[in-house]
């Protein structure tokens, strides 16, 4: 590996201790769960001071995603553009430090009224702090919330929902899998829905899912999950707006910054 002069040097290679774990640890039995049960979701918008819009989404059981939006900034060419960057923190996965994965930026584009931002670009960065399963879905929801928090004109919020199919011939589709379930899964699927318009914004699936009816059933299950999560995200936006209004109404204490 070429010497990287920009970072503090470490060992040439290293292995995760998990590889050497004593096999005696009986796999912690995951208690049977209802396939369509949703994990509790915490969403908070407007928490970074330096970004135009920001959102934090946490799924019960350990998926934490933070998203920030900058813009609109001036860009050279004609159409408005949405540039998305999805990154995982090096400490976000159990075991080895993860390499960057594929992004599903196209899922957000249909929701934003890019025609209203000619010659401008919106930069969006989603950071997965902890991956406890369904990280991509949580990141999509956080990204849409951050865009809305930044005041970007949108058609609707995008809600993401992850699913995975347990291995084996009769494997059932589970909504919002935990990290252990995702690792053992035979197929994974992420759906992004715009619930108000009832339009699917994005769909990303891979693996051995079985016959097409099984995939169709999974997509339906995912869309239903998105609809159920929608009110939580909207409420968080309302609360963020209320908080901002309350702060603005306070008499400025030697105003922090003149905007």
């Amino acid at each position, binding site marked *: 590996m070429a010497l990287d002069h*920009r*970072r*503090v*040097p*470490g*060992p*040439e*290679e*290293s*292995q*995760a*201790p*998990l590889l*050497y*774990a*004593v096999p005696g*640890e009986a796999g912690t039995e995951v208690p049977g769960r209802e396939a369509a049960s949703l994990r509790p979701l915490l969403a908070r918008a407007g928490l*970074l*001071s*330096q*970004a135009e819009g*920001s959102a934090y989404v946490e799924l019960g059981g*350990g998926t*934490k995603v*933070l*998203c*920030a939006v*900058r813009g609109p900034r001036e860009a050279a060419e004609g159409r408005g553009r949405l540039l998305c*960057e999805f*990154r995982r*923190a*090096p*400490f*976000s*996965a*159990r075991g*080895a*430090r993860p390499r960057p994965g594929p992004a599903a930026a196209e899922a957000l584009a249909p929701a934003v009224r890019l025609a209203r931002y000619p010659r401008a670009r919106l*930069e969006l*960065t989603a*950071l997965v*702090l*902890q*991956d*406890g399963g369904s990280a991509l879905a949580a990141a999509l929801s956080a990204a849409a919330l951050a865009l809305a928090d930044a005041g970007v004109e949108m058609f609707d919020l995008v809600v993401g929902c992850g699913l995975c199919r347990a291995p084996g011939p009769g494997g059932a589709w589970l909504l919002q899998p935990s990290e252990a379930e995702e690792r053992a899964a035979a197929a994974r699927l992420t759906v992004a829905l715009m619930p108000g318009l009832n339009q699917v914004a994005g769909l990303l699936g891979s693996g051995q899912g079985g016959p097409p009816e099984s995939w169709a059933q999974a997509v339906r299950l995912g869309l239903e999950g998105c609809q159920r999560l929608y009110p939580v995200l909207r409420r968080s936006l309302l609360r963020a707006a209320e908080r901002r209004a309350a702060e603005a109404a306070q008499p400025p*204490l*030697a*105003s*922090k*910054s003149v905007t």
Partner: protein
Amino acid sequence: KENCRPDGRELGEFRTTTVNIGSIATADGSALVKLGNTTVICGIKAEFAEPPAESTNKGYIVPNVDLPPLCSSRFRSGPPGEEAQATSQFIADVIENSEIIMKEDLCIANGKLAWVLYCDFICLDYDGNILDACTFALLAALKNVQLPKVTINEETGLAEVDLKQTNPLNIRKHPVATSFAVFDDTILIVDPTAEEEDLATGTVTIVMDEEGRLCSVHKPGGSGLTAAKLQDCITRAVTRHTEVKKLIDKVIKSIKPK
């Protein structure tokens, strides 16, 4: 009002400091530190590696500071920029000079196996005074690290990791950094915000240990300082160390019963 800063603070006053330890379950140790708006999260992951050839009884601690575009519009995505590199090097120096952990403690089998602690800092919100926030996050995260017990199987020569038994790290010293912004070598303000840092003519960071011992002074260029002013900085850094130490102890104690 005299001697008052734009956000209402006195010249020697710090912003509200909060610390949250152990929030990232996938990391071996983690801490989230907020100094006013500046937010830094530190996650530590421990892996195995061979000890370096020149010192076979030492492990590695590799700090890496990431200033992503999400924390401020002045940063672009891509390889670490100047400020990120400088901060990473500063943290590496603090670890080396303050002996917060002895690298010998990280060795498992002399010449064969040692721990590598990857300390990754991600700045979530950049409002000045990154150095203080990163040092504090490092200290809090290291205190939170639990390393699983490792034994070397004599027959196979491979390591065996028992994830159920964990031990905390042996933290020998507690370095705390205090940063000042200098204006024309007459005015010193503590804990500058991003706005104040941009306007300052120089910065100074003092890293203190317990018992009032000086670990390092970091003064990257900028306008000069008289010896008397430097002494004032050191005195302020000593009081700051007591405040921070009290905060960390309080937080560690509150999470002890797990």
